[in-house]
């Protein structure tokens, strides 16, 4: 039996995301939809494994907006549902979300946003907490693993109590951290789906699900927030830890609570510093705030990325000044805490120390000096494509075609492992100078291609992954084709949503529930648009190079090259080598070759290393994935590949 279905009262180790999934199961959720994105993917992933046992419909949707729409339909039909996404996914879903909060909902519906302060696995550190205040929906933030489960379960009840969507926000250090959770009861699910819509227009429980009449419904929506506020005043997810009258009050939420608690312990200040931990962060409960702000005159707000909590606390405090007196606030506005990036116990301890003039016990000076000496020896380990990654071969092809063309063409980048071509430019052979949101590579390429009349006349290329293609590229591609944008559009088709853990996408004949479903083919869509389409294997350098070279020279609008080769880490490939690859030391001329170490200096595969004693290339058998591409790049043919291991 899977851990996610553990019986009530059992203590288990859950990933934060598994705890959220368990919370949804305990709430009796019927529908869960998401688009994968780190650090959110494991919520749906783990639910998909228990979907049959729990009579749950689980879907990897084409993008976050559609995921939320799928979840909303279930809510409208009276079922409990959930949509899960990473921080920037909320931006994608936000247009529908604006209208959803206005129309109201029926069955409990929870939007889970797992965010990435410090951008550990993102190209942004977007903040979705502001969506909670902007679109006026309750916001819950768990600060440990038990709470991740319990708050998720409660979020469904809250959503039903107010007839509107509730947002639960996690962060990487919650979602991808693990801890003990005591399981609750899994309910017997009895709800049937039924959608009624013949009631009065102002009754969202029986009438049509629409956002009009806008102002009347907006006022109704805001009235319900008063109910939320009252519930938040009594919520057990908000609590104060510390002396009745501390010198400093910390107000915090999420993983930051754990950092704050650790920092206070590190400094030994448990008697002098109190912590108000909030699990309900919008709308803030004013009475609870007032009671706690009275404890002291110095307040430190500990939160990551934007000063959302700080602003909301200050607004409430300013309205209470007559009763609670003037306060001194520390946080991001006064630069006590950094304005960007993630926090940790050391940063928080530094902030507390600076306010109270206390210093942490330091390591012995001699140790610190030795440590510094050792640190100077350590080379950085830059991110790179894995051994056997098809993207390395694809960018090798792209780089060579651009060089051969000679007009200094460039690639507009997109979101996936191949983003590394921009993040570590040498990994992409310095071909990819732009990187923004999903699908924006194609939109940018469409725009660059229209600048010829202003003097920008060079080949414009763009890349996207197979999953990204469906998520957000199609409108941009239609735009390019229709507006005669001469672009070479390359799909890096590695047969799955590889970066987030091989979730299926619409191009595959398998669903999240492992059912057989119709595949929607990328080539067929591109052909239907009217684009010229070719398919190649990126490991076949000669064939791929030929197509790319002719595409770059060609006039017209969109030319599509689908480079198809499964990810080296995909379940069907992992641990299996297609080729046994070795360097023939007699053929490798080393530094005398004249290739200037093309294999190790330029190609940069982690499995192809340089023996500094022999001054020859050598394949590391532990790391080599056996793709055999390096055998095609050696001018001496010293890298030998043989089939059949």
């Amino acid at each position, binding site marked *: 039996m899977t851990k996610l279905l553990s019986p009530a009262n059992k203590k288990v180790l859950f990933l934060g995301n598994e705890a959220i999934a368990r919370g949804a199961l305990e709430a009796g959720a019927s529908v869960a939809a998401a688009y994968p994105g780190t650090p959110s993917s494991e919520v749906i992933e783990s639910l998909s494994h228990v979907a049959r046992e729990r009579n749950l419909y689980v879907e990897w949707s084409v993008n976050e907006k559609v995921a939320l729409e799928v979840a909303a339909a279930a809510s409208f039909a009276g079922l409990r549902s959930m949509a899960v996404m990473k921080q920037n996914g909320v931006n994608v879903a936000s247009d529908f979300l604006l209208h959803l909060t206005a129309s109201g909902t029926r069955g409990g519906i929870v939007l889970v946003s797992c965010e990435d302060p410090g951008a550990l696995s993102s190209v942004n550190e977007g903040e979705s907490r502001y969506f909670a205040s902007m679109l006026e929906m309750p916001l819950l933030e768990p600060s440990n693993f*038990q709470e991740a489960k319990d708050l998720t379960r409660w979020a469904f009840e809250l959503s039903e109590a107010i007839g509107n969507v509730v947002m639960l926000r996690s962060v990487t250090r919650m979602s991808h951290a693990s*801890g003990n959770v005591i399981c609750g009861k899994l309910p017997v699910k009895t709800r049937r789906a039924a959608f009624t819509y013949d009631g009065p227009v102002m009754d969202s429980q029986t009438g049509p699900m629409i956002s009009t009449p806008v102002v009347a419904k907006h006022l109704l929506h805001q009235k319900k927030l008063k109910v939320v506020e009252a519930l938040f005043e009594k919520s057990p997810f908000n609590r104060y830890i510390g002396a009745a009258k501390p010198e400093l009050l910390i107000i915090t939420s999420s993983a930051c609570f754990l950092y704050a608690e650790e920092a206070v312990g590190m400094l030994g200040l448990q008697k002098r510093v109190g912590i108000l931990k909030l699990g309900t962060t919008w709308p803030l409960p004013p009475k609870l705030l007032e009671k706690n702000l009275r404890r002291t005159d110095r307040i430190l707000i500990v939160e990551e990325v934007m000063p959302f909590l700080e602003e909301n606390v200050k607004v409430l405090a300013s309205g209470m000044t007559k009763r609670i007196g003037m306060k001194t606030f520390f946080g991001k506005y006064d630069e006590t805490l950094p304005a960007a990036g993630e926090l940790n116990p050391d940063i928080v301890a530094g902030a507390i120390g600076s306010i109270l003039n206390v210093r942490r016990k330091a390591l012995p000076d001699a140790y610190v000096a030795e*440590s510094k000496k*050792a640190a100077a020896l350590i080379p950085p380990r830059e991110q790179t494509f894995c051994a056997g990654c098809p993207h390395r071969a694809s960018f090798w092809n792209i780089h060579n075609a651009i060089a051969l063309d000679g007009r200094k063409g460039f690639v507009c980048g997109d979101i996936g492992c191949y983003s590394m071509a921009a993040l570590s430019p040498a*990994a992409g052979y310095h071909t990819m100078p732009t990187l923004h949101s999903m699908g924006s590579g194609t939109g940018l390429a469409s725009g660059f291609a229209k600048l010829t009349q202003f003097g920008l006349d060079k080949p414009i290329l763009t890349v996207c992954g197979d999953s990204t293609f469906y998520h957000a590229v199609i409108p941009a591609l239609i735009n390019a084709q229709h507006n005669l944008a001469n672009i070479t559009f390359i799909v890096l088709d590695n047969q799955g949503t590889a970066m987030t853990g091989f979730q299926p996408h619409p191009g595959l004949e398998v669903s999240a529930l492992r059912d057989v479903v119709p595949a929607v083919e990328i080539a067929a869509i591109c052909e239907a648009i009217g684009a010229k389409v070719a398919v190649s294997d990126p490991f076949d350098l000669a064939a791929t190079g030929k197509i790319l070279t002719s595409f770059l020279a060609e006039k017209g609008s969109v030319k599509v090259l689908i480079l198809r080769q499964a990810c080296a880490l995909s379940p069907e490939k992992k641990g299996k080598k297609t080729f046994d690859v070795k360097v023939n030391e007699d053929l490798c001329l080393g530094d005398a070759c004249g290739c200037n170490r093309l294999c190790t*200096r330029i190609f*940069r595969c982690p499995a192809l290393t340089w023996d500094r004693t022999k001054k020859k290339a050598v394949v590391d058998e532990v790391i080599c994935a056996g793709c055999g591409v390096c055998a095609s790049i050696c001018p001496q043919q010293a890298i030998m590949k043989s089939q059949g291991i």
Partner: protein
Amino acid sequence: MKMKTKARKVTKNLILTGVGGQGNVMASRTLAGMLVDAGYIVTIGETFGMSQRGGSVMSHLRISPDAVKSPQIPRGGADVIVALEPLEALRVLTVYGNPQVHVLSNSRPVYPIGVITGELNYPSDEAIESAFDRLSARFWMVDATSVGLQLGNPVLSNIVMIGALAKTGLLPFDRRMFEKEIRKTLTPDKCTVNLKAFDAGAAMIK
């Protein structure tokens, strides 16, 4: 030798480090699973996704008798560092080390790209061992990758390291707990090879 499995009163901080793809996450979950069953409150902090592609990976394990801890260990706060790659052991040691820390490291390097291209230098074995010596209370270097290769898969080096860790007695777990933990998820033949790796690791600690 009998394993020390009696309950501890203070939080033990362990950092498990290596390079993406070395089985770091699996190792940390296995360790944590055993310790949760033994009654501890365990918090693991880790990152995975894009951050692991060819880069350094790190799991922070907090083993507490009574409370959930920050998923990030404070600087200078490690009690034990277990590394699947020696350079990563050193990287973690220079940030989270202290005079009382114990280090258990695999000896086989995975070269960073900058070293492969010739732009950067990988420190010599002697330089690494000398730094371990100066920056830890005690350290062990074991060739876990070779054992993994002998057993048919280099990724088993993570289990070799767990076996070695058990033998050091630094954490409250033993072979019986390990076996119970892996039987939850692995097939019987996989359990057999994992136990072999565990035993081989334990045998490397004198």
